[in-house]
């Protein structure tokens, strides 16, 4: 535990500037993919998560640009807005299940994205929003923190994300989380036990969306410019890939997928100069992993852990949700 903490603190110092930037994105993406997993706990797979993240980004950016909100406050407002939008969407969407929910979430997300594109006022149209304020600098006596520095922003994002991960972890391990699982595996039986299935689906969706919105706000105030294409289906595909390559039956699965694929993608492929080949290799990884490792990287970890403990192998983990 302490080892990990030290590693997280020391990490940015051995890296180049561009690698530090990637590190910031990585931390933000981890929050995104873990919040996505919370959504999948109740068994529904959404294709709108990235647009919901965009709702947080747009809200927070607009609040600071137009109304002069203090950035951390606007970030929280962005998260709340994303949750609220999800709450509204839950009314039409949770009349659907499985494949229909997947398509419905995609359609409603695409509508939101097209609205950003269509309305120059206030969303900036296809060009989006530019020059979004960063976190204000901190100047207290000798301490001077400039959040344009990736390292500084990394620490800030890291703290925020760790707190969020802790919250998500607590929720999953609580009786609420147990109920999410119950809704997933046997919604009939859960309902017969008095669980309002629809309410719990909505709860998971709203919570996940709130954290996605926060990750969007974190991103917006770092890169400083967002547009409708920053949140299109392609980005959603990345999130989906992280979750599937990592596996979604454990808390750490999606994190693992996100880290491994980001390192592979950004460091290996970009440094080796395969710029154009990246989508190709990403696509191949998706296919190969779904064909030969349907339970994700986490299944490898589980097996390794089991061998390390030299205990009998853990009970077979269930296969993941199929919409």
């Amino acid at each position, binding site marked *: 535990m302490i080892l990990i903490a030290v590693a997280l603190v020391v990490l940015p110092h051995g890296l180049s500037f561009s690698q530090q930037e990637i590190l910031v994105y990585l931390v933000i993406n981890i929050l995104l993919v873990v919040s996505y997993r919370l959504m999948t706990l109740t068994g529904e797979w959404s294709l709108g998560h990235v647009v919901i993240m965009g709702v947080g980004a747009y809200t927070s950016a607009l609040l600071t640009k137009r109304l002069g909100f203090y950035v951390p406050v606007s970030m929280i407002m962005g998260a709340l807005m994303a949750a609220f939008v999800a709450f509204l969407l839950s009314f*039409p969407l949770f009349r659907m299940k499985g494949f229909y929910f997947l398509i419905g979430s995609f359609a409603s997300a695409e509508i939101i994205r097209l609205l950003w594109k269509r309305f120059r006022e206030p969303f900036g149209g296809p060009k989006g929003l530019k020059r979004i304020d960063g976190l204000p600098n901190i100047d207290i006596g000798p301490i001077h923190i400039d959040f344009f520095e990736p390292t500084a922003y990394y620490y800030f994002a890291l703290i925020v994300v760790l707190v969020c991960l802790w919250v998500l972890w607590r929720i999953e391990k609580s009786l609420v989380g147990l109920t999410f699982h119950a809704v997933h595996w046997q919604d009939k039986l859960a309902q017969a036990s008095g669980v309002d299935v629809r309410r719990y689906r909505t709860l998971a969706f709203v919570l996940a969306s709130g954290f996605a919105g926060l990750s969007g706000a974190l991103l917006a105030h770092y890169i400083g410019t967002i547009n409708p294409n920053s949140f299109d289906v392609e980005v959603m595909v990345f999130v989906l890939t992280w979750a599937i390559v990592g596996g979604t039956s454990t808390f750490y699965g999606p994190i693992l997928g996100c880290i491994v694929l980001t390192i592979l993608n950004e460091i290996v492929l970009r440094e080796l100069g395969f710029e*154009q080949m990246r989508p190709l290799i990403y696509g191949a990884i998706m296919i190969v992993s779904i064909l030969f490792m349907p339970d994700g990287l986490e299944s490898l970890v589980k097996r390794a852990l089991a061998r390390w403990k030299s205990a009998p192998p853990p009970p077979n983990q269930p296969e993941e949700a199929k919409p």
Partner: protein
Amino acid sequence: MFDLLAQTVLNACYSASYISLVAVGLVLIFGVMGIVNFAHGELFMVGAYVVVALYSNYDIPYVLVAAIGLVFVGCIGLLMERTMFRPLRDNPLGGLVASIGFLMILQALASITFGVRMAFVPPVTQDVIEFTDKIRLPLQRLYVILAAVGFLTALWLFLTRTRFGWALRASAQDPEAAALQGISITQTAKIAMFIGAALAGVAGVLTAPLISVNPHMGHSVIIAAFIVVIVGGVGSLEGAVVASIAYAFVHTFVTTFFDGVIADITGLLLMLLVLIVKPTGLFGTADRA
């Protein structure tokens, strides 16, 4: 006003033609294999690039190019079936994810081979049918409409009049019962995948001289096809055709009188509405998802 209306109707007929070719293939694949093929728009894109590769660069006759495109994209469909969908038969989500992976590969291959910029396709014909000086139908658009009618009729005959077609429809309705009847699932999956992909490819070949050919052109087509499939009813071929026509008219009219983005939003809202009110689609009875 009448001119504008008449012209818009012609434009709508043209979009209905290629959208229905793509959508019918999508429905066929979903019906027989239960897989949502997200890469279907990219098969359309590959069809268009076959034209770029053969017709723009070499002087091969257009009809021959169309035939090559049809077979080539159909074979890509067979490749997908063999390498991804057959091993993932019991895992619909897996099939979907794999098709997304395949989509990315096709896009990347197209941009590596041909560049990300719009590719140039010389017009096949410059002729235009002029009804009045304001109502005009370029001959190439007429080709698309005629070809779509032709191919869909051929598909209809194949499905209703031949033994293979009968087997295909049987396994689309009830795969288990069909298997019990001795219909090979692998065989029908292969046929469905070939036909479905070939139709998308042919749509790409036909429209290539008319639209901007680029590696990301599949995106808007697949969204249109999804809307059509949902509105028409998942698993209903007739529904897909009718919905294609309806969608093309709505989309073309809204584009003409408002703008393209509003038209896209209208289409998506339409689909959401159908999903909310009658998720099985206006013509659908199958509930296999």
